[in-house]
């Protein structure tokens, strides 16, 4: 009897300990996230004591080291980020969604089991390797194709970043599409819809918000991508006029300049401000997509 009591107590304690452990881990992740944010915000916001918001966001010139007349406009680099991430999406969205539909609705189980892991493995390629591939392989092709001096530009980078975002888009879209209940598809088939009509009129509309969220997550990845863009984007500070121009996205700029700055000076603070903006953008994108995906899954599982 006593033994049993003790045993039960121990079990209870153990359960409590496990619970505390998980709660603790959860709290730690939140704390780390908040910590990074505060750290970024604390240093970054100090930049705005001397640089006005208008100057920072609306001016095209970024030249912190110019003697006597430093310039702090990030617009050209924002444009660089926008070119690369939108360019990547223009390529990755049609390819990614078509692949997801193929995997979920058309491929035989064998093809799906083979292809999906392969696509997901793209995510495991270190971006420095893709960067090398871009430098040695893709950039020369792009420069030859368009008859330009260098293929290190927004186009080459978009293509490579598109490859990096594909696993996110394909994998999440495919999961969502596979959650579309069989009952809906059967109803459409029984009305005389062809397989393609079922996809177009039932599967895609029903899973559209989840597919949209997967694209947003891909966008988040594209915006945050650094090593690859550092290697392939060309890194010119000028405002890009077309996809064939070299660009310097925000991420690359931080990576390039952080080595040259004096800790604590205005340039240092301005780079942190840039980091803060990147963090805010990707945080909002990820949070929004997460919410959309959860809503979608709840809708599909009544």
């Amino acid at each position, binding site marked *: 009897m006593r033994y049993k009591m003790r045993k039960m107590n121990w079990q209870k304690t153990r359960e409590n300990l496990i619970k505390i452990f998980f709660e603790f881990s959860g709290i730690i992740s939140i704390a780390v996230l908040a910590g990074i944010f505060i750290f970024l915000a604390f240093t970054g916001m100090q930049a705005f004591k001397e640089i006005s918001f208008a100057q920072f966001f609306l001016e095209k010139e970024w030249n912190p080291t110019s003697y006597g007349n430093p310039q702090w406009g990030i617009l050209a680099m924002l444009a660089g980020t926008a070119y690369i991430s939108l360019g990547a999406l223009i390529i990755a969205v049609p390819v990614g969604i078509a692949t997801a539909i193929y995997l979920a609705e058309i491929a035989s189980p064998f093809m799906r089991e083979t292809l999906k892991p392969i696509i997901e493995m793209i995510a495991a390629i270190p971006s420095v390797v893709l960067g090398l591939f871009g430098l040695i392989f893709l950039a020369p092709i792009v420069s030859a194709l368009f008859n330009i001096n260098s293929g290190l530009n927004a186009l080459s980078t978009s293509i490579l970043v598109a490859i990096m975002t594909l696993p996110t888009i394909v994998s999440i879209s495919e999961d969502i599409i596979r959650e579309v*209940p069989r*009952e809906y598809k*059967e*109803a459409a*088939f*029984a*009305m*005389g819809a062809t397989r393609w009509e079922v996809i177009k009129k039932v599967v895609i*509309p029903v899973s559209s918000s989840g597919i949209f969220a997967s694209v947003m997550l891909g966008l988040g990845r594209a915006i945050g991508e650094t090593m690859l863009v550092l290697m392939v984007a060309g890194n010119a500070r000028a405002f890009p006029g077309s996809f064939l121009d070299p660009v310097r996205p925000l991420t690359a700029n931080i990576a390039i300049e952080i080595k040259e700055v004096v800790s604590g000076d205005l340039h240092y603070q301005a780079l942190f401000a840039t980091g803060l903006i990147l963090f805010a953008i990707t945080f909002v994108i990820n949070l929004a997509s997460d919410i959309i995906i959860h809503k979608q899954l709840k809708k599909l599982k*009544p």
Partner: protein
Amino acid sequence: MPKNIIKVENLNLWFKNKKILKDMSMEIAEHEITSIIGPSGCGKSTFIRTLNRMNDLIPTCRITGNIFYENKNIFSPGIDVTNLRRRVGQVFQKPNPFPKSIFENVAFGPRLYGEKNKNKLNSLVKKYLERVGLWEEVKENLNRNALSLSGGQQQRLCIARVLAAEPKVMLMDEPCSALDPISTAKIEDLMQKIKNDVTIVIVTHNMQQAARVSQFTGFFLMGELIEYGKTNDIFTKPRCKKTEDYITGRFG
């Protein structure tokens, strides 16, 4: 005997190596209601899903024998399956409206067959919602999501969706098993109203329902058609001992 719209000849069906339907032959009378009864797992659903070739969607399914729809063999290579399914519609056990508006649900078939004219669609949607007695209940807001309707309303919406495709035959697989008695009564009334336009084949576990609604009844047991005839005869003077045992509730 009235004219037959469907004729089944020596139908056998396997899933993988398991034989599910065994040498079935039966004729389905046009403009009548035929019910299929039998214990769980005897192949009722599988049988009606062969009539519109929905079993094509199951890769392990293999079929021998013939089924004639309006004297054309539905398994012959020249048959357009989508066209067959348009003629032979199906209502499922669990109401399965699309998670779209009421309007879009009813308009699904007409749109699928190429109707684009908004006025025409409006009048079709109204016509078929009226036909299933749903119009008065939903006319205020046709843009409401169909999933916000009650189960019984959803099932009537599904029937409207099928009717809007103007089928000649409507297959109903236990359409009332998830519904309350009032909703069930509404659907039974509806079946009587539409049977002059569409021939109905209904699977049911509810013996009273079969007796109430149908003119012909087939009794299935372990993949065999044990007895088939006028509903009245099946329920009052079954020829087969097994049928009698089943309808009197002695097994099943």
